[in-house]
């Protein structure tokens, strides 16, 4: 047990697993209550029929699909960013990767709930899966919803693997420090990790393969979510720009979520020494890039529609630009561009606080963007007699709030069971020279095994 005393990194990062404050239990209880309210709201909706939500004819998709796209977008924070940073070997990534990857897994799980919640008959959702059945039909592979089903399942599987692989050495480290039931649980999860050279090499190549494989999967997932809209000839949905536009927006909102999560971890788990302002600075620059990209996409989309001057599209265009939806539209522009742009451009403002403020604005703006993509188009289809309007109902709002609570709760719980910062990667990364002088034999072993 000599090594534990000489191991400040591991001590700091493992501490949250063994020490839990009363605040944690209190906030977890509050969040769990909100999540239970969401579950009750869903049960209520299933019992009485989906008419308790605000959707109507002809706006068949409302808050639920908005939240679906929003959460799938958030999920692009983690795995994609982490994979890119790994592949380009950005050294500053090391404390960031795991807290990013966790966002992906939980945001995907939450996002994937919404297509189920929004179904008229959710108990039949398994009909999307291709399996031999007495009905003797397969899912309709022409339907973008079926593509969604496969894309999201693939992404979820890949993200879970991508999260779990680099966790193995850390789980083994906790196993070696723990006693009792914890030792058993972490020992099982560590899959017999001994830290041999062979195991390190296998881990490294496994991570390399996953990092490469997950990037096209991540891009395809949000492209396919965009296809849910752009495959229909609905005005302003039917656009070739939607695939890349959605992917850019997803990464945009994902980075914002990551910055907020990191700032919270930094404050609550006292990780100031690990999540340094330079991480926020770098992610802030990335957020700025995505903000500019987002503005470019919006400009390209809007200009093309306006110049084309096609009547049914112009109805939607003016509804968002100057009509019923204009307040939401301009709030979106302010949140996604006007607020983050100066904050992230000026070095003086690109602090931890500045990045968090910009990120909150971006999350609000990107949520509005999803809403404004879905609802105005459905309310202004070509036959003017059938124009409609939508206002969300209580059950939809409760379910939406519950998913935010669920995200925070899951994230909190995860940080209590697994070090939220990858200990071994940090150790390897922090040492520019072989640590021959150090008494930390664990680190020396790590160094030797470094590929």
């Amino acid at each position: 047990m000599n090594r534990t005393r000489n191991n400040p990194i591991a001590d700091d990062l493992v501490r949250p697993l063994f020490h839990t404050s009363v605040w944690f239990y209190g906030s977890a209880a509050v969040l769990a209550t909100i999540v239970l309210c969401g579950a009750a709201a869903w049960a209520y909706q299933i019992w009485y029929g989906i008419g308790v939500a605000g959707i109507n004819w002809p706006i068949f998709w409302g808050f639920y699909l908005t939240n679906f796209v929003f959460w799938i977008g958030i999920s692009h924070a983690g795995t994609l960013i982490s994979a890119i940073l790994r592949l380009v070997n950005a050294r500053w990534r090391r404390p960031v990767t795991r807290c990013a990857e966790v966002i992906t897994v939980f945001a995907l799980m939450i996002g994937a709930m919404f297509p189920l919640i929004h179904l008229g008959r959710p108990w039949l959702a398994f009909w999307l899966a291709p399996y031999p059945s007495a009905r003797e039909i397969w899912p309709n592979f022409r339907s973008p919803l079926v593509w969604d089903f496969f894309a999201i399942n693939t992404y979820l599987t890949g993200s879970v693997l991508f999260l779990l692989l680099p966790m193995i050495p850390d789980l083994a480290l906790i196993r070696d420090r723990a006693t009792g039931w914890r030792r058993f649980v972490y020992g099982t999860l560590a899959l017999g990790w001994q830290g041999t050279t062979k195991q390190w090499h296998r881990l490294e190549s496994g991570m390399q393969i996953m990092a490469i494989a997950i990037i096209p999967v991540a891009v395809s997932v949000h492209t396919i979510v965009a296809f849910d809209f752009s495959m229909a000839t609905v005005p302003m949905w039917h656009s070739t720009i939607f695939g890349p536009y959605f992917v850019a927006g997803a990464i945009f909102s994902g980075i914002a979520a990551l910055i907020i999560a990191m700032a919270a971890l930094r404050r609550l788990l006292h990780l100031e020494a690990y999540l340094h302002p330079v991480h926020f600075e770098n992610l802030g620059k990335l957020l700025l890039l995505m903000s500019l990209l987002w503005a470019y996409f919006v400009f390209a989309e809007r200009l093309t529609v306006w110049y084309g001057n096609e009547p049914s599209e112009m109805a939607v265009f003016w509804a968002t630009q100057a009509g019923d939806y204009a307040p939401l539209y301009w709030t979106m522009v302010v949140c996604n561009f006007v607020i983050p742009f100066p904050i992230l451009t000026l070095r003086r403002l690109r602090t931890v606080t500045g990045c968090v403020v910009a990120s909150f604005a971006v999350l609000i703006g990107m949520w509005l963007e999803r809403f404004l993509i879905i609802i105005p188009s459905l309310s202004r289809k070509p036959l003017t007699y059938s124009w409609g309007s939508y206002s969300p109902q209580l059950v939809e709002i409760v379910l939406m709030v519950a998913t935010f609570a669920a995200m925070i709760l899951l994230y909190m719980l995860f940080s209590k069971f697994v070090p939220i910062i990858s200990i071994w990667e940090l150790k390897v990364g922090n040492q520019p020279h072989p640590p021959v002088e150090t008494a930390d034999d664990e680190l020396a072993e790590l160094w030797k095994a470094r590929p």
Partner: protein
Amino acid sequence: MAYRWGMVVDLDRCTGCEACVTACHAENNLPTVGADEAARGRAMHWIRVERYWEGEFPDVRVKFRPVLCQQCGNAPCEAVCPTYASHQNEDGLNAQVYNRCIGTRYCGNACMYNVRFFNFFHPQWEKPLQLQLNPDVSLRESGVMEKCTFCVQRIKAAKSAAKAEDRAIADGSLQPACAQACPAGALVFGDLNDPESRVARLSASPRGSKLLEDLGAEPKITYLHRQGWHESNA
């Protein structure tokens, strides 16, 4: 010989009386949802009469346009359904299999004519209205999409009868409820594959056009323009 059912809507004859809407409700067990739900956009009318006004008071002209499922040959609603609940049947109808529908409502979004309707709640009929339900038409439960079927129950019955007697269905002997109820004879139904049928001849009229034709959905309903408009308005 395969049938290809279609319809002609003569806008010159339509008076906007909505007899077709009422007849459709009675024939196809369409629930009425009440004033409050209807105001929220939950009314179900497989056929509706759209009203458009032109001009300033007192020189106002109103135009009626009955809109029902256009039974598209290249239907956007069919491709997007993940479970084949919405599919093209052998007569070229856009059939909806209620039991297969899981309620994604994607078809309703993809349909540019907005002629697909969703059961937001379990349909209910106040007593004794349940006694007037048509036994040939299944009731739809909460959470499924439904739409105009061209009264497929009548088509099936007519086909069975014709097959038993080894003959084709005679033109005009088969009508959906809306066409049957139309006092002005504005709705003409029949087999587009039979060039001698009334509907096929009227479809070829120079007055004819399709609704949102440029979308390429190949609708099987032809609208005949009102005549005399241009001259009188000039």
